[in-house]
């Protein structure tokens, strides 16, 4: 039996476990509250003391996806009985549904821009990382530092010239403009992470392939790419999370067609002040995919978060 004298005692483990679980529960409370608020009625959401037990309602989600207007009770009566369940919810408040809200579009923008920029930055990042890892590139260290430093730049400072430049080029408030911008920001992370992953693939594999008559290109995509697949996937997740969450560029450079969800969700308002259940519903739908990704991919998290400083 391998028992180490440095192994913590059971009492220590219990003590540590209780403290960590306590912190985790406390820190998860705001997130649980977002999800719960999304299923409350507006009255329940602003009840005091805060309601932990409540009868769930889909009002928040209905309000999130529809735009509504108030009608007089007579007009409402003239409309006849509601045809759908969401009609019924809305009519309790003397309202009728005019059409869909902007949330769906904004969410789709986030998806298009997120996946577009992720694909581009991972593609460009992979080939650049391969070159940096395997070839003698002049001024390699300077280029790598330059690439990293672009990530650190304050977005608002970068946004001033980008704003002017995009206006000249007709790229402001377009999907393409945002995809290019996020690709540039993500490239630094993807080059650095992927270089770390490719560095770890033994160079002998490629040499063997080259001797077998493969060209460099073939060796790259038949030998290196499959080996780096996990690394590429986890890099992609990180790029996606960044684009998904980004706010500063989005709020300054988009206003309509290409606006993503983060600048949109805080602007959701109801008829009398802020409609918190709708905001919470919007936030839930937007945050939940990332929460699930995080839990599923926890093994690969560390490296991406620390810019490749930490190995497995």
């Amino acid at each position, binding site marked *: 039996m391998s028992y180490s*004298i440095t192994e913590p005692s059971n009492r220590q483990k219990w003590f*540590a476990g209780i*403290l960590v679980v306590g912190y985790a529960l406390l820190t998860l*409370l705001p*997130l649980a509250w977002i999800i719960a608020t999304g299923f409350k009625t507006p009255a329940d959401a602003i009840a005091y003391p805060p309601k932990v037990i409540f009868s769930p309602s889909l009002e928040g989600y209905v309000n999130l996806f529809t735009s509504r207007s108030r009608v007089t009770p007579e007009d409402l009566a003239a409309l006849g009985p509601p045809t759908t369940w969401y009609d019924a919810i809305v009519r309790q408040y003397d309202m009728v549904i005019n059409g869909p809200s902007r949330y769906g579009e904004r969410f789709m923008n986030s998806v298009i821009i997120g996946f577009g920029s992720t694909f581009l930055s991972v593609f460009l990042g992979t080939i*650049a990382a391969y070159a940096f890892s395997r070839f003698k590139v002049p001024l390699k260290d300077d280029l790598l530092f330059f690439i990293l430093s672009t990530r650190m730049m304050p977005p608002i400072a970068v946004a001033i010239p980008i704003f002017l430049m995009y206006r000249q080029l007709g790229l402001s408030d377009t999907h393409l403009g945002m995809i*290019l911008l996020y690709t540039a920001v993500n490239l630094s992370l993807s080059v650095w992470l992927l270089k770390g992953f490719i560095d770890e693939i033994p160079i002998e594999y490629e040499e063997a392939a080259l001797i077998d008559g493969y060209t460099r290109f073939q060796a790259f995509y038949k030998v290196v790419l499959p080996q780096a697949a996990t690394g590429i996937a986890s890099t992609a997740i990180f790029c996606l999370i960044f684009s998904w969450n980004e706010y500063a560029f989005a709020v300054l450079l988009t206003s309509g067609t290409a606006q993503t969800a983060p600048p949109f969700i805080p602007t959701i308002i109801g008829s009398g002040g802020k409609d918190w259940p709708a905001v919470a519903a919007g936030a839930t739908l937007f*945050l939940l995919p990332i929460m699930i990704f995080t839990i599923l991919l926890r093994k690969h998290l560390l490296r991406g978060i*620390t810019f490749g400083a930490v190995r497995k």
Partner: protein
Amino acid sequence: MSLNLAQRVASATPPKLARRIRGVSDRTIAWLFVTPTILLLLAVNIFPLIWTIRLSLTNFRTNRPNNPVEFVGLENYRKILTNPDTWASLQATAHFLIWTIVLQVVLGFSLAYLINKKFRGNDLWTTLIVLPMMLSPAVVGNFWTFLYQPQIGLFNYFIEFFSGVDPASFSMIGDVSLAPWTIVLVDTWMWTPFVMLICLAGLRSIPPSIYEAAECDRASKWRQFWTITLPMALPFLMLAVLFRGIENFKMFDLVVQLTGGGPGATTLLTSIDLKREAFEKWRTGFASAYAVILFVTVFGLASIYVKALNKVKDR
């Protein structure tokens, strides 16, 4: 016949060209692979940077494109660096920076230390703790304003529950003396996991044999902590501090949603101040000079960060 022709071509082709036909040379591939990245970064980072520097020497205003643009030399820099309001905004940033770093390092290191005791299920709980930092700061920050509502907020309810203070009597966001702490609190909630993860990596990089040797020498646990654990984890801690320092120096999304810089200018961090100058007052020349100052500061800090990063990587 055809074989003959192929032989003739082969013998007539110089070796260098032959290699190019078989496959592109390594040198070409290197350039082919690196160039798109460099070009994109030049277009989206360096070109705008040069433009910013040029603008910072003029009195250009985006909302008045027809005004004559005059070269004003270093006048914008002089204005910023002697402006008490800008100075105040940097002090607000300093308050935010120092307290978030202190709290996150203390909390993050403690958590990492506890998680490293390897109790059952520790990796699941680590993942759950990490959740807040993976989410959109703007969306989450916006929701925190709901938790901070004086009459109805969950946060105020907790304060009432534990201290009996009337929940309607204080507003974490509207009060001049509370607001700077409010942003510290939410940032700590969000980013403590980051410091924790880096510290955890640091603690796990310490080989157990060192502790075994210390046990043999009958060094106390307390002594082991100060002579082994802390010094060995220190480079990682430095990395976390620098990274959080840079990130919070340019903090925008979370705080702009939480307080919007208010009340007054108590939480007007530099990025929010810069945003107002550039995109609300449209003093583009002035704001560009401001941006250049932030650029240079972040660039300087980034070089120190990379140095620290390489130190950790070399281990």
